[in-house]
């Protein structure tokens, strides 16, 4: 009798379907995965440490570069956390605009996820379609913040500047186009026997395990647990909007695919409600000494210019204390834990990265699966290595 041994296989960090620089050590028995061990840290950028060495204002651009598919969500989380720490209340218009931008980000992130996930499973054309649609959203970003991806548009106490004049028309146009094209995606994938074969019953995680692994976002909801921070702990005025939280049943990759498609539709609903009832008002809160005054005031008023100068050079001093603000990012719960220590720099900025926590369940997802399902499992978690490693 020949002795049977397992084979250890290294996957990554340079691998086309690990979505970046994830490395997985796989122990294989034939085609079956016995054990998987994700190795991370290949994109460790020291973002938390960098943010701790900057003024509160200047740490904002670092948040864009963590989850680079959902920059606005990260901006929003950070700004809400600092606003909580400084006890700032922002105008209603800002809240509504932020909700709309955060939902656009969700659509953007889910589109990229859909394209890359389908590409991993062999549907090359999906990538081309979703990246075509994504350009529409990037155009809106560019009109708002002047950059395609790293806009830093949401600022502490408000927005960087006024929303563009054609914002409403652009968003409505985008919603109209993508809504129609979602049907095309469904035609391509939802009943596609190959796609179903590759995803149904693959990478299953039960509700108890999902709780035990502390998952969040679509990974948790895919297993049938209805937990969405937008509903459960509303922030930034989400309680004003009417939307459904889709949940899955079986907790497999196929359920998570359906769930994310439905989330895109719900995001559109929220965006339309925002556009229908956008209140009038200033685009930034008036809190002298903490929030930058609007540009028009700086050019005309003396105090505004002095405050502007002081905030840019010295920043503002935060009280001693810790706040935690969690928001529902496309990947799950992204939380910003900010500790002020009485100086103008944060003592600690901790990001609770949803992808990091979700990735920890990869060994459970692929245990006993076939080797080719590992790619599907990694894809369905929807990881972004910039956020996992920070």
């Amino acid at each position, binding site marked *: 009798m020949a002795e049977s041994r397992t084979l250890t296989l290294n996957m990554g960090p340079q691998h086309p379907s690990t979505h970046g620089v994830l490395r997985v050590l796989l122990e294989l028995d034939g085609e079956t995965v016995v054990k998987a061990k994700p190795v*991370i840290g290949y994109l460790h950028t020291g973002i938390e440490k*960098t943010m701790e060495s900057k003024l509160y204002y200047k740490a904002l651009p670092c948040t864009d570069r963590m989850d680079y598919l959902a920059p606005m969500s990260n901006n929003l989380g950070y700004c809400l956390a600092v606003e909580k720490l400084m006890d700032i209340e922002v105008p209603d218009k800002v809240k509504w605009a932020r909700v709309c931008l955060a939902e656009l980000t969700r659509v953007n992130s889910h589109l990229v996820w859909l394209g890359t996930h389908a590409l991993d499973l062999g549907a090359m054309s999906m990538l081309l379609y979703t990246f075509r649609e994504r350009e529409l959203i990037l155009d809106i970003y560019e009109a708002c913040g002047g950059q395609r991806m790293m806009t830093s548009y949401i600022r502490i106490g408000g927005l960087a500047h006024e929303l563009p004049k054609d914002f409403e028309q652009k968003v409505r146009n985008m919603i109209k186009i993508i809504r129609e094209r979602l049907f095309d995606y469904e035609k391509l994938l939802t009943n596609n026997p190959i796609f179903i074969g590759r995803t149904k019953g693959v990478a299953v995680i039960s509700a108890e395990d999902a709780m035990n692994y502390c998952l969040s976002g679509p990974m948790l909801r895919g297993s049938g*647990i209805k937990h969405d921070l937008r509903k459960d702990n509303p922030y930034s005025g989400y309680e004003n909007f009417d939307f459904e939280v889709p949940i899955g049943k079986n907790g497999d990759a196929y359920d998570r695919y359906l769930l994310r498609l439905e989330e895109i539709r719900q995001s559109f609903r929220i965006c339309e409600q925002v556009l229908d009832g956008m209140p009038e008002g200033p685009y930034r809160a008036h809190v002298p000494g903490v929030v930058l005054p609007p540009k028009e005031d700086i050019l005309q008023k003396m105090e505004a210019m002095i405050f502007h100068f002081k905030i840019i050079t010295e920043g503002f001093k935060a009280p001693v204390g*810790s*706040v935690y603000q*969690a928001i529902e990012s496309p990947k799950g719960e992204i939380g910003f834990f900010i500790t002020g220590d009485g100086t103008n720099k944060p003592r600690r900025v901790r990001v609770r990265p949803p992808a990091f926590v979700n990735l920890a*369940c990869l060994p459970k997802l692929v245990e006993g699966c076939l080797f080719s399902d590992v790619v599907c499992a990694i894809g369905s978690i929807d990881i972004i290595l910039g956020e996992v490693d920070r």
Partner: protein
Amino acid sequence: MEEKIRQFLNSKFSDSIIREDNFRGEQSFYVKPESIFPICEALLENDDLDVKFLKDITAVDWYDHPLAENGRFEVIYNLYSFAHKYRFFLKVFLPEDNPNLTSLTGLWIGANWLEREVYDLFGVTFEGHPDLTKIITPDELEGHPLRKDFPLTYEKPRFSWNKDNPPEVIK
């Protein structure tokens, strides 16, 4: 909900609660380091409170700050009650030399990576952890980067006028 948790903690662990704090509407309980595991275990078993979620574990380094008299490291456990949609924090202060806690991996498997991260970035050790190794930083890196005495290592940018000099590193 706040009152419920306070009653629960006071009824069973009254001698381990040091103090409590409410900052910006967020409730936190400062507890003794050795009692963190029993408290979490009791919370997890109590169906009424339904504290089934461990959202996050993180730490703060109070190096060179007046608050460091309680202990240099503050480890924060972020717990969430699903039924009551309520979030609260358990905080412990740890001394500078040999900061040590009991691992929560027996209660939540998800604590595994979170604790490894705290160990990697702050050097807080967790007893009973199955695999307490570096997770994010390279193996060659010595020290724990998020400690305040670890230098950020700023490197002077090179322009055309200083491009021939070796890069100047400020620690």
